């Protein structure tokens, strides 16, 4: 792996691989214990109940075996004793970029965050290592009662709301990594959109890991009250190191009746990051939850954004793309449970494997016996760019109600020489032609992204296609 990362950096494929000198104000020793868990809670002056949940979750984490599916041999490589579980790099969260420490501000500037904020966002939080270093929201939204905070501040300022919803969608015992996250969580976003409020421009969270062997465990909770709308966008990158880091987040969405939550992710971790994330939403009557999930980076990603369609007439959509290059495994997919009648869902999964990379689609859609007239649509397409790469699909449908209408399509394709020749005959080099085909393949996904993100993703893929032929 080390060699691979160095090579990647040398050819400049991964553009976000630089790192800042580490100027931490608090840095925990490597390793995890109940003491570490209590100390994190203590540092943050948390209420008793949160400390208790953390400790219980930690105990569950210890007992819980590793998943017995997915890429088990890669999972075995995670060295939980060689990870830093908490690192504070700025004494507090600032709401003015000028007050953010220079190195950190520079990093976010290189990533284009302050610029994007001015142009097209309603609010931004920027997390660096364990905590949020910058945060702001447009004043008019604040006046309308929209709450957009980092999760630590959310807990401090709205403890009753957090207590009500925290772990209500993803119980800590859901899986080993949700238990770990609950035990050591830090940072992430807390959002509440009041009844009827439409947040027109997206809010963005950006997550940056800087230190080596870092563990980042953000926790996000979004509550959209009746008839409200919100689009949340997140991005993430890390330096390329020869040793592994761990990113393990938990995201909980609550879409109250008639609301609409869209959650878009462009995950571009460096290829030394394990990305093991639990994302789930509960959709009440006539509400809509959409996950738009792009996985480009990381070493191993295991992530299956899910929606529980609890209220009648609710709708779920999971649109995802995965790109797996050398040494990477994207094990991604979706989970949707139709618990109520007249609920609809759509899963569109697109993956590309190259240079020995591996992409897996793992999906589960269930319809409960009481849920009548549900509609399910699942499409997964894989594109394999060479002989050494791999793609697998593991689709599961459990339909216990005969009125359900299910559609499922899957395809695996290769880039044909004739297609490449056609584009090359129009003056495009082989790599440009390949990037055109690949971006076209991802188009149903990119068109769902804000324009700026779509452009960035296309450029990212063009870079990944460089040097892939020949």
């Amino acid at each position: 792996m080390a060699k691979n990362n160095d090579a990647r950096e040398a050819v400049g494929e991964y553009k976000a691989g630089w790192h800042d000198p580490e100027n931490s104000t608090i840095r925990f020793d490597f390793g995890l214990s109940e003491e570490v868990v209590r100390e994190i809670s203590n540092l943050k002056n948390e209420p008793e109940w949160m400390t208790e949940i953390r400790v219980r979750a930690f105990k569950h984490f210890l007992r819980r075996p590793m998943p017995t599916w997915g890429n088990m041999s890669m999972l075995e490589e995670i060295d939980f004793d060689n990870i830093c579980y908490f690192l504070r790099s700025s004494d507090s969260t600032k709401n003015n970029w000028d007050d953010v420490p220079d190195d950190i501000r520079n990093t976010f500037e290189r990533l284009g965050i302050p610029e994007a904020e001015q142009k097209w966002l309603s609010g931004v939080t920027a997390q660096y290592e364990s905590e949020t270093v910058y945060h702001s929201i447009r004043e008019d939204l604040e006046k309308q009662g929209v709450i957009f905070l980092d999760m630590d501040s959310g807990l401090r300022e709205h403890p009753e709301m957090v207590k009500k919803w925290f772990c209500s969608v993803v119980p800590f015992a859901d899986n080993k990594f949700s238990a770990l996250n609950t035990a050591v969580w830090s940072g992430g976003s807390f959002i509440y959109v009041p009844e009827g409020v439409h947040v027109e421009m997206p809010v963005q969270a950006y997550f940056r890991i800087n230190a080596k062997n870092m563990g980042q465990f953000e926790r996000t909770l979004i509550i959209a009250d009746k008839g409200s709308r919100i689009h949340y966008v997140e991005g993430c990158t890390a330096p390329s190191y020869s040793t592994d880091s761990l990113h393990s987040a938990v995201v909980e969405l609550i879409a109250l009746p008639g609301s609409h939550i869209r959650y878009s992710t462009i995950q571009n971790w460096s290829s030394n990051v394990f990305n093991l994330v639990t994302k789930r939403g509960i959709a009440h009557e006539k509400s809509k939850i959409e996950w738009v999930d792009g996985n480009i980076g990381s070493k191993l990603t295991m992530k299956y954004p899910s929606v529980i369609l609890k209220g009648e007439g609710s709708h779920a959509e999971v649109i995802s793309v995965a790109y797996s290059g050398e040494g990477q495994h994207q094990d991604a997919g979706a989970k949707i449970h139709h618990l109520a009648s007249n609920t609809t869902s759509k899963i569109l999964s697109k993956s590309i494997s190259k240079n020995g990379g591996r992409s897996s689609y793992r999906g589960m859609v269930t319809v409960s016996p009481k849920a009548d007239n549900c509609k399910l649509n699942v499409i997964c397409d894989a594109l394999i760019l060479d002989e050494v790469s791999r793609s697998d699909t593991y689709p599961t449908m459990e339909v216990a109600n005969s009125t359900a209408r299910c559609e499922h399509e899957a395809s695996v394709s290769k880039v044909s020489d004739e297609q490449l020749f056609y584009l090359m005959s129009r003056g495009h080099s082989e790599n440009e032609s390949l990037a055109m085909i690949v971006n076209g393949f991802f188009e149903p996904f990119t068109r769902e992204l804000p324009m700026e993100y779509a452009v960035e993703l296309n450029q990212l893929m063009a870079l990944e296609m460089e040097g892939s032929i020949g």
Partner: protein
Amino acid sequence: MSEKMPLLEINDLHAGIDGNEILKGINLIIGPGEIHAIMGRNGSGKTTTANVIMGHPDFDVEKGDVILEGESLLEMEAWERARKGVFLSFQYPQAVPGLQVGNFLRKSVASIRGEDEAKSSNFREKLANAMESLDIPRSFMARYVNDGFSGGEKKRFEILQMILLRPRLAILDETDSGLDIDGIRTVSEGVNAAIRDTDSGALIITHYSRILEHVQPDRVHVLLDGRIVLSGGPELATKLEERGYEWLKEE
């Protein structure tokens, strides 16, 4: 033949795939402003000739040369040849799902004619006019390249690209097959406008004399089993359409 340097010169071209020889010594000279036609039965090597001129990577050239305006093309990749002015209207244009027509045309013009031309307001006007003359609806700009196009729409789209890219050498591989009568006339007008009274040239591969009635080729060549066995004026096309290819074997 004019005294000027030929536009295209093919000398004793032998080419094949995986050791099988398909082209067995092709000789052809196209002068500036000339339109030539190639006819020949199925499998005689017409598309292979077009592919080898364009630079399809699957074919190996064992012998001979392909020279555009004094410069050998053989060492160049397809995209370099395109930038030198070679254009191929494909017999089977390829679909690229997700790649929008408008975007593709802009990128192709940028890479072959230069960024400035692709950005100019002139380009948009030209595009609009060409689309109108070819009967391609505006809505095609947002569709994906050749994806779900009808046979005739694909051929019209090839010619649209030819008009925008303004090649030195345009090769049309059975562009008339699958086109309706109006389509054939429009395409012929496009070819005449692009080649006649210019320094450019065209090579039209076809099975039918109808398109040749419109463009009046300077020469018609008959390809048989990888060789040009007969060349003549436009009247040869009519003769072939009437009598087929059997009689050639005896001669």
